[in-house]
Each structure stands twice: as C-alpha cells, then as structure tokens.
C-alpha cells in the first residue's frame, strides 16, 4: 500500500552553539549571530518517513514548514535527501505564533494537502523544547498520535506499529491511520544528501526567492515544474486570521530577561598540586566528601 506522508520540519536557530555575541546588550536575541539549521529531531522524522517510502513503493514524502522566506532552505534539504515536494507556509500573519497558533496553521495546511496517511515530525524543536506542536496538530486534525517514537516497525492493513519511549522504558504500540507521529532524537539519524538529488533540486526556489534573485534561466522553471517550491499564505490554506500568529496565541510573553545570577563569594585556585591538595583536605575536614 502506498502512503501519503507529510513531514513537519522547522528551521531553527542553532541554540546548541551559542557564542558570546548571541545576546544583545539589551537582553534580546541576536538572531543574526545564530546559524539557521534543520531542527535536529525533524531530521530523525524525515528518515522515518523516507524509510516508509522505501518500504512502500509509490509513497510520497512532502515537507511542510512554516517560517520566513529563508525557511525554503528546509524544503530543499528535504528534497536533497529524498522527499518528493514541499510547502512553505509563510505570511506576516503567522508571526508571533505560540504552539497552539502554530498547530492551527499547520493543521489547516495539512487539510489543504489532503488525504494524508502519516504526519510525522520531530518530538520537539531546539528553540522551544516544548514538544507541544505534534500533539496539538493531531488534536486539530482529529487524529490519534504516537509521540516519542524510536522506530516505525511496520505499516499494514491501515495500521501502524511503532516502538516508542516511555518514562523509564520502551513500549510497542499499534494504531490506525491516519496518524500523527513525533520522533525522538535517539532514533536513526537521517541519511545524507544524495548527490544526484542535489543536482536535480539545487535551483529549486519559491516565487519570493525567484523575485529576489537575478535569474538567468527563467525558462528553467517553466520546463521543470519540480523546481518551483510552493508558498502558501493564510488565505491559500483558508486560514482564520483570528487563530493565526499573535492573535491566535493564548499564551503571552509577559517578560523576558537575562538572568543575572547572585554572584557568590568564591575562591579561585590554580591547578597546581599544592592548591588541589589543600582543597581536598578542606573538603575532607568539613565532611563534604569522604
């Protein structure tokens, strides 16, 4: 049985490699100083999707991402690894969305894509770590969900069998299609880019990107339709503006601060024998160790 699979992927700032210039003097984030990457767990999800496609010939893998224009990069990364197509949800009205408004937008786009069997994404994104979008999308679509997936074991007769993490262990569960699945970072890593696919899709662009660049080969996009990446606005997915972006977000950020730790009076010592020995003796004497 061939499957229609949608991968939810997010472009995120690489919060794992935050340098000293990542925060501005006023305590806000200097996004320009952080490289934008494919959210790591979404890559694990993409791999599970591609494996399903390998196992079920005729299946399609669609990348769905929401973000600013530059998030089209996520779709190209997906195409380079074996996805078939992708959609970029981009609109000023989506800005400032919390997890619920994000889920609403993604769910409307998934409805527009239509007739999906498996919707799969990373467990959480590294810029928020909330793990909320997957279950919220599932609820909005009226589908059940399997979170913290380690491996999709099999799909047969309209049912999917998944190994997943639970608190302190693992379990194997089975549920009906269509379904939403979120994948853990400990799942199999994503396959690398495929050289042939990179050649095929390296010029793939959204309409906005085409308008920005000086295109020498405009006819290329007429001849090879797969190079045209689709952008969707709120209107394109029949979205309700009141449920999008900031206005559709029940949570509001009241305050953001850089915490300044109450500095303790501390003692700095070097790494010489004498200094380390004195410290150890002191810790033994006051029964901190030993």
């Amino acid at each position: 049985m061939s499957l229609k699979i949608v991968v939810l992927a997010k472009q995120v700032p690489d919060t794992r490699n935050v340098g000293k210039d990542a925060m501005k003097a006023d305590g806000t984030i200097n996004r320009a100083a952080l490289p934008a990457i494919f959210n790591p767990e979404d890559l694990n999800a993409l791999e599970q999707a591609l494996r399903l496609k390998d196992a079920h010939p005729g299946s399609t893998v669609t990348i769905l991402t929401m973000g600013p224009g530059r998030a089209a990069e996520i779709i190209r990364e997906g195409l380079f690894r074996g996805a078939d197509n992708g959609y970029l949800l981009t609109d000023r009205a989506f800005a400032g969305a919390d997890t619920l408004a994000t889920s609403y937008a993604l769910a409307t786009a998934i409805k527009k894509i239509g007739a999906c069997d498996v919707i799969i994404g990373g467990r959480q994104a590294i810029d928020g770590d909330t793990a909320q979008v997957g279950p919220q999308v599932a609820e909005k679509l009226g589908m059940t969900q399997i979170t913290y997936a380690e491996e999709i074991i099999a799909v047969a007769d309209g049912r999917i069998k998944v190994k997943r993490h639970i608190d302190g262990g693992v379990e194997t569960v089975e549920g009906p299609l269509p379904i939403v699945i979120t994948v853990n970072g400990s799942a199999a890593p994503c396959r690398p880019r495929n050289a042939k696919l990179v050649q095929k899709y390296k010029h793939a662009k959204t309409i906005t990107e085409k308008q920005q660049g000086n295109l020498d080969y405009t006819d290329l996009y007429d001849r090879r339709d797969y190079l045209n990446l689709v952008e969707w606005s709120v209107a394109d997915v029949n979205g309700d503006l009141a449920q999008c972006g900031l206005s559709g977000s029940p949570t509001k950020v009241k305050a953001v601060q850089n915490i300044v730790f109450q500095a303790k009076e501390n003692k700095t010592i070097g790494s010489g024998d004498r200094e380390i020995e004195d410290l150890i003796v002191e810790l033994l004497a006051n029964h901190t160790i030993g």
Partner: protein
Amino acid sequence: MDVSLELLTKGRSLANQLKCQLEAIVIGKNLKGIEKDLIPYGVDKLHVFEGKGLYPYTSLPHTSILVNLFKEEKPQICLMGATVIGRDLGPRVSSALTSGLTADCTALEIGDHEDKKEGKTYKNLLYQIRPAFGGNIVATIVNPEHRPQMATVREGVMKKQILASNYKGEVINHDVKKFVADTDYVIEVIERHVEKAKNNLKGSPIIISGGYGVGSKDNFKLLFDLAKTLNAEVGASRAAVDAGYADHDRQIGQTGVTVRPKLYIACGISGQIQHIAGMQESSMIISINNDPEAPINTIADYVINGTVEEVIPKMIKFYKQNSK
C-alpha cells in the same frame, strides 16, 4: 510518580494564595486506597477514574477525561508533570480547550498582568516561568484570557511535602463511560518494557558533572573515575549529551534532571541558564574550567582554573592520600 506529589504541594500553596480549592485527578487501574496517598498533600477534592483501558496510558481516553472534566469544573489552573505522559497529554488537552500551555516551567507564581495595548488589567494570573531559547533567556508566560492556565513541570523542580496526614478531602469516583467514548480506545499497547533507572542522580549527595568543555567521550571517563573514588554519580550538561559524551539520562538541567546534592563538581561546563536551573540549589559548587569567564563560576564556591585532564587525576590522587 514523585512529580505529581511535588505539584500537589505547589498547587496547595497556589490555592492558598488564590483562596481556592486544590483538586487532583487520578486515572488508571487498581486505584483503591489511592486517596490515602494523595489527600494528605492538601487535596480538597480527588477525582478518580478507574477502568480497564486506562492503564497503560494511551492519548485519547486520558484526553477525553480531562477535557470533559474541565468543561464541567472550569479550573483556573492545571499543572501536570513534564513526563513523557504529561508531554503527550498536556498539549492535546490544551488544543482541545484552546487554552495555553507552557512546558517545563522552573517556577510558578501568582501575579497581575497589564495589557497596555488593550488597556486591560488581569488580577492573579499564573506566571509560568521557564528558560527559553536553549536556556539563554528566562521568559515569564501568562494566559490572560484562556482557562485553564496550563503548565508542565519536570520532576524534582518543586519540593513535595505532606501537609497533614489527617487532611480532609472529598473523593469522587467518576463513571468513565460518561467521559470516554469507545472510539477513543484506538491505540493498542502490544509490548511494554520498563527498566529500573540506570543511575541515581537525584539521590546522590555528590555529583560530578561534565560539559562540552570536557572535550571528548574519553575524557568523560575521568569523571567516572573521580565519581568512583568519591562514591558519586556522573551528570552531564545538555551540550555534552548532544555531543555524545554522555547518555541522555544523565542530563542535568531544565530539560533533564533537577538535582540538589551536597557537592556539585562542574567540569568544563560553561553554565547556560538551562543547566544552572537544574543544579543551582546544590550546597557546594566547584567549577573546574580553563575559562575564567565561564558564567558558572559566578555561582561556584570554588573555581579551579585548569583543564579536566590535569585537575581530576590530581583530585583522585590527593583524595586517596588524605582520606585514610
């Protein structure tokens, strides 16, 4: 689970501040007598849902119970453990009720909120405080308009405390069928394997913890050597876990375990808020770091200016020499 008891204690103090009741929900099987374990934490009303399909946990039946109960009871606040179950269930419930949810809070407070744009003032909202953006900032989140205000909290962040062993609370045994449709039981749990935790980070009085600055998985072995010598546990920062130096179950911080040991030795840890949130209440902190500017040094009692490779073997050597 401990985190639920910790949240009962936190919930009790919030309820006292708001002058309202603390209610708790328990869902599962074989729950007879469960009230004896819960009501002493100050629970005024305990909702019990007992049924065959309710254990092991699956998403939809639990969601239906919470959503339908919340529609009746209209709670202003809902707290949940940020366990795998809580993180599966919380967002689903919040979506169904279009109420906001904040994950992995490290502090919960009551306070007012003024929306200057709308010219509205809100009294007694739940401040949901959490590190965000990889732990580089701390955000205070509020849900002005939507109820319940939902938050999840990791185990160990709050402290549990029995209020009174003879506390009087009401127990309500609900009819599960009135809350859950048969069609909700769609996920079948085929096999389940729960292991005992591989480490005892939460209970260990001494923790040797390593960060990205440890440099390699090989160097991490030095931490295990020191831990063995001092009868301690080994923890890790998120950066060290991401780099593959240590297993995920050793991660200390907002998205890992919160610890309060007698002694915390931070090796090559720079000290992002996300990490500090999980260890700042340690009685004594020693930082081993060759960067004198590392933020963790500001909360350390002792800073050893040096590398893990040179300092740890010396600590082991001098401990062995002096401890007899």
